[in-house]
């Protein structure tokens, strides 16, 4: 009995030292990973600067026609700084992008819609012009938030439910098949949602995550993480768009 107590204390003590040692190794690994990210960030900044100055030949011309619809996801903290969003849109206008969907989960950019439309030259609201009627010298903007994601699908689903209920045969209790992708697309349009699938989604925030962008529209969209909006770089934007124009989509085939 007496022999067990010191043994238990010793093994507990060894266990604690072991855990402390593992903790130290874990922290050390994360320091190394952070240093790697810092160094890699410096290289990216230098490359981005070189691209902005036109020093890297391959980025000097971009086939912008391939990019029909661009979406930009902005982290909530970044969305509060509307001036940076306006600057980004001005860059996109310079590059020649014709249609941009701006998303933040809380709808802060939706609230600043009027200011953004006023400050970005030749910008129009997409809902007013429709996708097919954008003049070549304009940029059409769409403002999206989380309410356009799951809640919008639920509203559309309720339209389909209503249709289904109306079509139920009294004899067999079975309704018409109104549950197809095209029916859902139509119902989403009825509730005022765009069903256009962006070709490219740029994420400005700490993490590569689409942060709740409408799921129905995200199926084959290329998702690129651009880092913080506060430290955004024109060269990185050009690089991301250029990389997209080289992508080959096979849509699962």
């Amino acid at each position, binding site marked *: 009995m007496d022999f067990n107590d010191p043994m238990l204390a010793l093994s507990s003590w060894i266990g604690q030292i072991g855990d402390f040692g*593992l*903790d130290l*190794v*874990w922290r050390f*690994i*994360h320091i190394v*990973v*952070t240093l790697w990210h810092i160094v890699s960030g410096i290289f990216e900044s230098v490359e981005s600067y070189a691209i902005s100055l036109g020093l890297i030949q391959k980025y000097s011309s971009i086939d912008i026609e391939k990019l029909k619809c661009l979406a930009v996801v902005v982290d*909530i903290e970044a969305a509060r700084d509307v001036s940076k969003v306006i600057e980004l849109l001005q860059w996109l206008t310079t590059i020649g992008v014709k249609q941009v969907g701006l998303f933040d*989960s809380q709808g802060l950019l939706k609230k600043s819609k009027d200011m953004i439309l006023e400050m970005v030259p030749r910008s129009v609201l997409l809902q007013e012009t429709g996708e097919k009627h954008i003049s070549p010298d304009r940029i059409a903007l769409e403002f999206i938030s*989380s309410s356009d*994601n*799951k*809640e919008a*699908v*639920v509203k559309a*689903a*309720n339209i*389909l*439910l209503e249709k*289904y*209920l109306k079509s*139920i045969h009294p004899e067999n209790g079975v*309704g018409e098949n109104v*549950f*197809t*992708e095209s029916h*859902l697309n139509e119902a989403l349009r009825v509730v005022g949602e765009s069903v256009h699938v962006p070709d490219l989604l740029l994420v400005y925030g*700490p*993490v*590569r*995550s*689409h*942060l*709740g*962008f409408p*799921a*129905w529209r*995200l*199926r*084959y*969209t*290329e*998702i*690129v993480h651009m880092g913080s909006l506060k430290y955004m770089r024109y060269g990185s934007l050009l690089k991301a768009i250029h990389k997209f124009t080289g*992508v080959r989509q096979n*849509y*699962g*085939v």
Partner: protein
Amino acid sequence: MNTREEVGEFSKLFNGFMTLMRRFIFKVLCVGPIPNHISFIMDGNRRFAKKHNLQDLDAGHRAGFVSVTHVLQYCQEIGVPYVTLYAFGHDNFRREPEEVKCVMDLMLEKIELTIDQAISGNLNNLKVIFIGDLNMLNERLKAAAQRLMEVTEENRGLMVVVCVAYSTSHEIVHAIRESCVKKCGDGDSPQVLEVSDIEECMYTSIVPDPALVIRTGGRDRLSNFMTWQTSKSLLHTTVALWPELGLWHLVWAILKFQRMQNYLQKKQELD
């Protein structure tokens, strides 16, 4: 001891050493938060076959299956409770019929092998579930998948969700249909759908949303996979093709997840 025996002994020692190293690495990794659910978009099997001049139509996919066994073993050792594998998409049925048949036959072969392992107790308590539009599978494959699910139903280890004939767009439409039919059948409740009604009817309602999505093959898209469930997920892409995915790729992805965990948790609380 002759040379063959010496090589065999050395091989055993080396494997033992590598296993110890791996367990130590995982012990260190587990000091930090581990993703509750990791989803894998297993892209790159065909490019792997082309890269290594493998002639058989299913060669890349066979190599991909080996990768599946390693990844599941690693996830189990790390202690990840849920893993989802995007095995075959709805849109993949539009590939050449010979290739589709090849993949289906390979899946059948591997499922039957896994059933044998489960029955003989060599599956490490894995629970396997197949989700997707299983009516698109041939009868034999569908029956085998059902059998594997039955045989592993009582297992309480790592839950492996295999997405076959799956796509987010199909899942959403299917969930809407099921929830509408359910609402019609339930005369007492109001005839209005909520988000929870639809989410209950989704194929993936059996698992929590993924914390980490890993896509191999270097592509930056989700390819119609779990776009509804990944609003708070870290999306990680690696240029390694699926059969090339190894221990260090997984460790790197988890380290990245651990670095971003504070932000992801704050976002979850805000929402």
